[in-house]
């Protein structure tokens, strides 16, 4: 087990390096560096000014030198400054992180809260009306474009009935509000984004719980539990559920990067200043430091999530032997 952990951790190093090289390479391949992106609209900028900016960003250096400089700083956790406003990348990220984190954690909580009971219900009553209904719901949920659902809800709840705000994370003017008023204003703004981001996950997750549960219910130890006369409730919730939920750990591990990543498209639809929007802006203004500062930690979390999921799985299930 220990050897496996060490091996996996060592393997993460070359993959992480590969990730940085690939994303750095793609960013640099893009025509027009940050100097061009910044001066695109100012015809007055002289050739010298452009050159100065290019030097400042290190864009006059060959690719491998730029990468080496960046990497050297990055391993000391120095993400550098954003090109656009010269502020520290770390500060810019920390500023955006809370809102994305709030939305994603709330929606993950919502998914777990709803999906587990649904999954259990449709597994214990396989082929019943409720199982058929959830099966259909799962397929529809998988196939629904999230931004379309967002638009429909904005139209119905925001425009038609006017019960919910349609964009942003707070009202334009909150100065007159009490603390409680501000909180409820904020909560109102979160309802739609949280619901829409939970919707897609809900379908997949409840299906996952259902299939695991069906698998477990076929096992011998469940038959044994029933045979020795345990009440069905105890069989389901004590013997079956525990085993069925174990693979859920894997999914939780895998959703780690998504929690900080933020969805570019949902943040665009709802006008939320989160991580997704920041990445989008960074890529299009060729803000290498900023883009890499978001991307590499996200990629690292993806690997870490995978890794933790495997380890946690092995710890909770003695049948799993990792080599």
């Amino acid at each position: 087990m220990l050897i496996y952990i060490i091996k996996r951790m060592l393997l993460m190093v070359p993959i992480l390096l590969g990730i940085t090289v690939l994303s750095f390479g793609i960013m640099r391949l893009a025509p027009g560096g940050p100097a061009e992106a910044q001066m695109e609209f100012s015809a007055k900028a002289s050739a010298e000014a452009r050159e100065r900016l290019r030097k400042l960003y290190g864009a006059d250096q060959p690719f491998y030198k730029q990468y080496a400089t960046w990497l050297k700083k990055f391993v000391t956790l120095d993400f550098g400054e954003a090109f656009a406003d010269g502020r520290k990348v770390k500060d810019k990220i920390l500023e955006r992180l809370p809102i994305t984190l709030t939305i994603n954690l709330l929606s993950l909580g919502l998914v777990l809260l709803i999906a587990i009971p649904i999954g259990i219900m449709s597994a214990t009553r396989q082929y019943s009306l409720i199982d058929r209904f959830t099966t259909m719901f799962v397929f529809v949920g998988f196939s629904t474009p999230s931004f379309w659902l967002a638009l429909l809800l904005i139209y119905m709840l925001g425009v038609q009935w006017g019960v919910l705000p349609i964009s942003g994370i707070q009202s334009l003017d909150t100065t007159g509000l009490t603390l409680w008023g501000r909180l409820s204003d904020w909560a109102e703004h979160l309802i739609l984004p949280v619901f829409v981001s939970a919707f897609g996950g809900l379908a997949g997750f409840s299906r996952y719980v259902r299939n695991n549960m069906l698998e477990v219910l076929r096992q011998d130890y469940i038959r044994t539990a029933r045979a020795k006369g345990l009440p069905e409730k105890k069989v389901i919730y004590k013997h079956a559920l525990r085993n069925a939920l174990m693979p859920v750990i894997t999914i939780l591990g895998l959703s780690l990067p998504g929690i900080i990543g933020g969805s570019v498209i949902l943040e665009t639809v709802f006008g939320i200043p989160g991580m997704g929007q920041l990445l989008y802006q960074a890529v299009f203004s060729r803000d290498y430091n900023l883009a890499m500062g978001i991307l590499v930690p996200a990629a690292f979390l993806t690997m870490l999530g995978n890794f933790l999921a495997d380890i946690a799985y092995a710890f909770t299930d003695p049948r799993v032997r990792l080599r």
Partner: protein
Amino acid sequence: MKNRLAVIGGILVLLVFVLSIFAPFIAPYNPSNIDIKYILVGPSFSHPLGTDDLGRDVLSRMLWGGRISLEVGFVAVGIATILGIFLGSIAGYYGGWIDSLIMRAVDIMLSIPTIFLVLAVIAILEPSIINIMIVIGLTSWMEPARLIRAEFISLKEREFVIAARAIGATDVRIIMKHVLPNGLSPILVSATMGIGGAILIESALSFLGLGVQPPTPSWGSLLSSGKDNIEIAWWLSAFPGLAILITVLGYNLLGEGIRDALDPRQRE
């Protein structure tokens, strides 16, 4: 139960396919015909699904847009599948360092958020229909590669492969004639569902203004103009999104059905 769903999926897929192919004959109007007398008119007898902000007929634009969306879906999945089969076969058949190399590349690709790859590549290539196909293809070959590799690993030690090697067949022949045809069924499922996935990505990109560019209609770019008019014209958003939902649903159901048919062991 499952079979019925698969049949529904097949019907949906076929329906969208036929409507798109015959769009030029079915569409009541020219999709780029601007009519300033009918700007943002709701569903009516003359325009069943309403008109957009330039007075163009939404139904006609959706029928033509379906051609683009399906095209993107098929070509993107084609690229991803061919690339995946190629890399997956090599990794699975030869094993060793080349397998490690390819699988690490898969790990790297899977660790970088797809949206970044797509955004960054679009930033290089400029948005166009062809580039969208390439981008989606280049960012979704990992699953088919993994599936094919797993098939190769389990198939390459079978007697018929060993027999082929014993009579002196070349590696290329063994891969193409003996192993690959036996390992294709999981790919069929992933490709079918992949078409739905690619249509979703295309619509998301076009929605952000990074995919199919106006005035060319695709379901995503129609939704994008729907977003701008959401407060006054619900039909601009509702119908194209419904078309995406129905199409993607069709491919997902069909994919499940194929999985069931090919692999009776998973039947519940």
